[in-house]
């Protein structure tokens, strides 16, 4: 079965919506541009489409970030598509996939009003010049409301249709305002018209559409179009077709950006478009999927709505730019152009796929994807090893350099001590000494940093490897839904090849490749596909987002919404490439989808519950990173503190000597630091040659070398000394730019340094270190509070969302909402293969009322109980959400004419069942992994694991209990050590739970540990947790898998 025309379902279908609105910048006449000069608007657009060709229905929804600005006589428009979902429904069922996009920008172009020119190539100009330009002058002038009719010669559409004549299109434009905002409403109505397809079929087609924008067509508030066609075959078979496209501006919380409540003019217009769109258009006596379906009516619809909207906006040159940019991908984004090949994973993928395609021909299937993923995994492993090796070599080099610095310091000290004279030689040697000393200090810090980086790098790659191991295991193979979807895409290819040679559509090829720009989110690298070579290049940039240049982890922690939106790759690229006949590119894209980040796969394959798990994992990873950074700071501070301590001790030792009072610096190696007096040879020299210096030092020149009285030396610091020390330490801690020690006032440390002794903390500093721990604890508390605030905010957002729904219901704008939704919306948050296996839950189910659970699962909207249990995390979360509970348990209003219809009651029952299921599951938490741990499966029945304190060994104690079938089979209490403690427990077949309860938090809160499990076949073999005293983390283990 071929759905050739559905390639438009990607971004191309939105071209008409984007129109002048689209890029209003381009749409506005020069005179009007003056009015809006300096305007800028950045907002989110939600796109949706639904194509039904009589054999199947393709639905698509996707978010995009729209940015539009005017400056001087120019406008600039950027469009960045984000994540969404696509479904293909036919007689065999529904194939669905959510997808993500981190493409920097799909559309980025400028328009110069003075010259009327666009930046970039113009493959669309012929259509624009021949067709659109001829129509745009027929309407009423801009700024005036009115209605007019245009006649579009079918021949100018440059499509393979015949006997169509002119197509009458009625266009209207009205200016009005709502809630103080000026808006323009453009409607078009394409009268029913006839034409013939090349196949000999007759087509009757018609359509309607409406766009609501600001009064200068700069900002899209909402766009909705609906086209229908009936294709009549010579034998009487009739095939209905339908194309629905929508777009609306939305807020980050998903609510509509423009409040249409009470906006009757818009609602009436929307109702006109939405009239008669209930349900899908089903096949009429059209049997079999092997018949080729001509998708030309979709192309006709696209072109006509483009013309109609263009006429409505009278958007001359700008429109062409929009379309041109759309079809060609536009001028290359400077950011994209600056992308640099760093030779990373995508290169490996490319290499693999090139080889794969050469070996197997242009075949794209799940095996290729999986092979590429495996290949990448191997590549990752190689790179991980290389990274460790590189860091190790770097550290070795640094060590050698440090040894050299130590040697230099020693040499200079020795030479200066030999000198015993003042003069040029002394100054020269002192300069060398100071330089070597600084170098030593710097190298010491480098060593600390490299230690931490080495550890972090190892950890990062280890995590990546684990992700890819999961990935390789989870990539669907042939026969799966996902593979089926991919295969459907690949089947769409041949017809599109024909299209490639057909006028403006040839741009699709380029567009598809440009569309392949993708980004690896997790590792912070972006990638683009070179449109000429097909190779993938890597770079890194988040600057196309309003969130600024942050790491993915930061994004994840601070704004998970955007982070999740931005992770991954655009599956539309796959579709477009597949349609465009470029199977290799499609395979590349598909692989990119799977290799860009394992988290994407979770999102695509397992739905919202996995997002939550991912959130937890990433939070844990981030926490670990922070811990390590803190550890690095701690160790750096330790070194600096130790040096400071030495300096203070020296200072205290010589507290009776003012080293600056006599113009002498005690860093002078000729001075004995133990006494503050010149060493013997120098003293002798001064006594004979410069007695005044001795006087300046407070030494009687007549005194014999070495002096005769005993010097009163105090080694005990006074209270004032401690106060000063504490102030300085506080300065160090509070100022990240250490070392900030007042060394300009201090004597140097020991002339010869033996290097940092990381583990040594002077006894007398322990109290201060403990104070630092308290500071860290307070910081942790602050973090926790921040997290709580974030959670509260999320909760409030959920409540706001509920309120919005209520408002929508009350405002009577529901009809509009329903038009804007399609099947794919359901898959943005929930997608995947239906779970059927209840085996993992058997040990729990034996204690439950399974019949009731099954009934609740079905009422809650799940296909079976296994699916509901697979989504247990969501159910529990919803059940614990007060807002959701209130919403779910509120009976539908039975007032009004319609009363309580079955649909309302059914939905109510569904919501209540979700809560009931969530409650049951929440009461059975021991069957789930908690506190950041995630479920694992192991190959045998011997549970072998190591628990260790991966951070500071600070005396953390935990209780460990292993249960199976409700019985304890192991119990112990251990102190967590860096070295780790290993356990080997024999399990029975069935789910086991490892419950870890924090007995204390050590002196460095919280109680943190890593647990490494052997023989893991699914899940993360190494996991970490952070617990407060009394809290419990549960790890669910399925043996024998």
């Amino acid at each position, binding site marked *: 079965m071929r759905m050739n025309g559905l390639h438009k379902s990607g971004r191309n279908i939105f071209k008409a919506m984007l129109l002048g609105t689209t890029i209003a910048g381009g749409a506005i006449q020069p005179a009007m541009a003056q009015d809006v000069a300096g305007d800028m608007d950045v907002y989110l657009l939600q796109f949706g489409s639904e194509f039904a060709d009589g054999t199947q229905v393709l639905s698509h929804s996707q978010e995009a970030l729209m940015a539009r600005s005017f400056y001087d006589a120019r406008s600039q428009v950027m469009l960045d598509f984000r994540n969404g979902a696509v479904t293909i429904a036919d007689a065999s069922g529904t194939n669905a996939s959510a997808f993500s996009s981190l493409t920097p920008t799909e559309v980025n172009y400028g328009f110069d009003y003075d010259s009327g020119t666009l930046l970039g190539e113009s493959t669309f100009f012929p259509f624009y010049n021949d067709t659109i330009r001829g129509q745009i002058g027929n309407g009423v002038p801009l700024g005036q409301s009115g209605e007019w009719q245009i006649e579009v010669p079918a021949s100018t559409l440059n499509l393979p249709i015949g006997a169509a004549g002119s197509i009458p299109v009625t266009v209207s434009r009205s200016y009005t305002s709502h809630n103080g905002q000026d808006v323009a409403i453009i409607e078009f109505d394409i*009268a*029913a018209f006839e034409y013939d397809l090349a196949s000999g079929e007759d087509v009757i087609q018609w359509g309607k559409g409406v766009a609501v924008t600001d009064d200068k067509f700069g900002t899209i508030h909402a766009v909705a179009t609906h086209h229908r066609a009936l294709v009549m075959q010579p034998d009487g078979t009739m095939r209905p077709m339908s194309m629905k496209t929508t777009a609306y501006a939305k807020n980050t919380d998903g609510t509509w950006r423009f409040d249409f409540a009470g906006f009757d003019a818009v609602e009436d217009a929307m109702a006109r478009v939405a009239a*008669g769109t209930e349900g899908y258009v089903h096949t*009429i006596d059209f049997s079999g999927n092997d018949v080729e379906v001509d998708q030309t009516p979709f192309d006709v619809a696209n072109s006509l709505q483009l013309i109609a909207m263009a006429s409505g906006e009278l958007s001359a040159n700008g429109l062409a730019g929009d379309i041109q940019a759309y079809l060609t991908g536009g001028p290359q984004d400077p950011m994209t152009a600056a992308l640099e090949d760093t030779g990373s994973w995508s290169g490996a993928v490319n290499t693999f796929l090139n080889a794969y395609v050469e070996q197997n021909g242009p075949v794209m299937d799940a095996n290729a994807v999986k092979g590429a993923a495996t290949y990448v995994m191997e590549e990752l492993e190689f790179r991980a090893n290389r990274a460790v090796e590189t860091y190790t070599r770097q550290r070795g080099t640094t060590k050698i350099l440090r040894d050299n610095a130590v040697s230099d310091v020693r040499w200079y000290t020795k030479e200066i001590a030999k000198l015993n004279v003042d003069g040029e030689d002394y100054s020269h040697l002192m300069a060398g000494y100071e330089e070597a000393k600084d170098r030593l200090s710097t190298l010491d810090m480098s060593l600390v940093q490299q230690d931490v980086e080495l550890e972090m790098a190892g950890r990062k790659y280890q995590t990546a490897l684990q992700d890819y191991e999961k990935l390789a295991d989870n990539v669907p193979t042939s026969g799966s839904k996902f593979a089926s979807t991919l295969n459907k895409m690949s089947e769409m290819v041949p017809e599109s090849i024909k299209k490639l040679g057909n006028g403006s559509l040839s741009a699709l090829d380029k567009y598809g490749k440009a569309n392949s720009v993708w980004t690896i989110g997790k590792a912070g690298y972006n990638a683009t596909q070179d449109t000429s070579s097909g190779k993938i290049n890597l770079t890194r940039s988040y600057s196309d987002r309003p969130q600024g240049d942050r790491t993915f982890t930061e994004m994840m922690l601070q704004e998970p919404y955007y982070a999740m939106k931005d992770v991954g790759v655009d599956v539309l690229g796959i579709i477009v490439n597949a349609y465009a006949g470029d199977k290799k590119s499609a395979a590349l894209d598909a692989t990119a989808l799977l290799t860009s980040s394992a988290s994407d796969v979770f999102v695509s394959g397992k739905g919202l519950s996995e997002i939550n798990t991912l959130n937890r994992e990433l939070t844990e990873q981030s926490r670990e990173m922070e811990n390590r950074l803190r550890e690095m700071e701690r160790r750096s501070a330790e070194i600096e503190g130790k040096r400071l301590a030495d300096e203070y001790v020296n200072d205290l030792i010589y507290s009776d000597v003012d080293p600056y009072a006599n113009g002498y610096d005690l860093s002078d190696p000729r001075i004995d630091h133990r006494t503050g007096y010149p060493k013997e040879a120098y003293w002798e020299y001064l006594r004979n040659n410069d007695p005044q210096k001795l006087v300046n030092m407070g030494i009687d020149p007549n005194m014999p070398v070495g002096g005769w009285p005993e010097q009163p030396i105090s080694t005990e610091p006074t209270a004032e000394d401690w106060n000063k020390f504490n102030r300085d330490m506080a300065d160090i801690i509070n100022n990240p730019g250490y070392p900030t020690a007042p060394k300009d006032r201090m004597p140097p440390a020991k002339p010869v340094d033996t290097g940092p002794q990381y583990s040594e903390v002077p006894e007398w500093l322990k109290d201060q270190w403990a104070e630092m721990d308290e500071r860290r604890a307070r910081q942790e508390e602050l973090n926790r509070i921040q997290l709580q605030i974030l959670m509260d905010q999320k909760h409030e957002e959920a409540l706001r969302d509920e309120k919005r729904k209520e408002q929508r219901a009350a405002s009577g704008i529901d009809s509009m909402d329903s038009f804007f939704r399609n099947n794919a919306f359901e898959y943005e948050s929930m997608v995947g293969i239906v779970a059927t296996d209840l085996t993992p839950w058997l040990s729990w189910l034996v204690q439950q009322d399974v019949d009731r659970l099954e009934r609740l699962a079905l009422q809650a909207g799940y296909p079976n109980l296994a699916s509901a249990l697979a989504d247990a995390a969501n159910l529990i979360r919803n059940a614990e959400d007060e807002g959701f509970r209130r919403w779910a348990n509120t009976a539908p209003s039975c007032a009004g004419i319609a009363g309580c219809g079955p649909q309302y009651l059914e939905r109510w029952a569904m919501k209540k069942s979700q809560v009931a299921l969530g409650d049951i599951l929440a009461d059975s938490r021991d069957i789930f992994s908690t506190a950041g741990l995630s479920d694992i499966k192991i190959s045998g029945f011997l549970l072998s694991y190591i628990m260790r304190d991966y951070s500071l060994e600070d005396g953390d104690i935990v209780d460990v209990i292993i249960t199976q079938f409700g019985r304890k089979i192991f119990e112990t209490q251990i102190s967590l050590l860096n070295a780790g403690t290993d356990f080997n427990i024999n399990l029975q077949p069935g789910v086991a739970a490892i419950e870890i309860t924090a007995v204390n938090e050590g002196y460095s809160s919280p109680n943190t540990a890593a647990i490494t499990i052997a023989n893991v076949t699914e899940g993360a073999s190494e996991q970490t947790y952070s617990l407060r005293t009394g809290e419990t983390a549960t790890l669910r283990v399925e043996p024998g898998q």
Partner: protein
Amino acid sequence: MRRIGLFGPRRIFGPRRTRSTSLYGFAAIAAAAIGCLPATADAQGYAEVGAGEIRAVSLKSGQAVSPNALETGDQAVIENGNGLVSFAGYDVDLDNVSGAMGYSSAAAYVIVASGAASAAGETARAGEILILMPRGEGAAAQFYDAGRYAGSWDEASISAHPAVYEQLDAVAGRQKWKIFFGRLGTTSFNIAAPGSAHAETARRSIVGDATVRDIRFSGVSDGVEIERSVVRTFTDALSSGDVRTVAELLDPTPYGGANMSGQAAAARQMVAERMVDQEQWSSLVAGREFTRTADAGVWQAATPAGEIVIRLTYANDFIFVSNIKRGI
């Protein structure tokens, strides 16, 4: 106390409303459904129509009209109508009835302002409405809100039918006291526009066309016979080149589903035109008997050009034609 809504047996119209619910009644929405009334009524007065010698005039056009030929949504005002009248597939016995008759998408009805109208064992008297269900499903007599109905008449209608209006007003006066004393409660149900005016408009575009309505209100209740009637009407229309009838019997789903507004009707008309032009139907199907196959909704006939198969589909409470394939 007689707690009864003004209209609507529960089996048809859903739960009965109490007085606390909306007072919007039949009359108010009926007016909306009627649309613009003529500025003046027909100066010629009522026309003699039908065996029952009733005289009816369209509220919409002001012209004399047969009630059976009324456009769905229009109403025919009758004054002192007597005798047996065939209407909506029923034999309606009028006993000096003044009021109105009409079709909605859901039912046909006789509004009685004075006199009595009977059909299928039910009798509606002054202040009551005789509801005639499609497919011969029977009749029902219910109260209607005469005040609201009379209030929906414009000046032109009032001046054209002063006697009927006066009787409506009298009924309204009596109902007013019954409502005041709680003897009657009001309902939001409107037989002329069940659900809402918008829904009624959409539904009329599907089942309100004359061809469909005639079959629905032919009094035939047997499903197979209704199918047969659809097939026969469709093939006859093809043979005679009656594009309008062909179009009205085509399945509305591909054109708008539950609403044929906008270009949908025009598109269906164009499809019908193409369909009529595709073959010499008169030589293929004229006078040919189609038989129902074992497959639900599939009728076929053997012709010199091979089997012709008509596939029917159930949509919006009626049987429509999905397609007609030939040469099988």
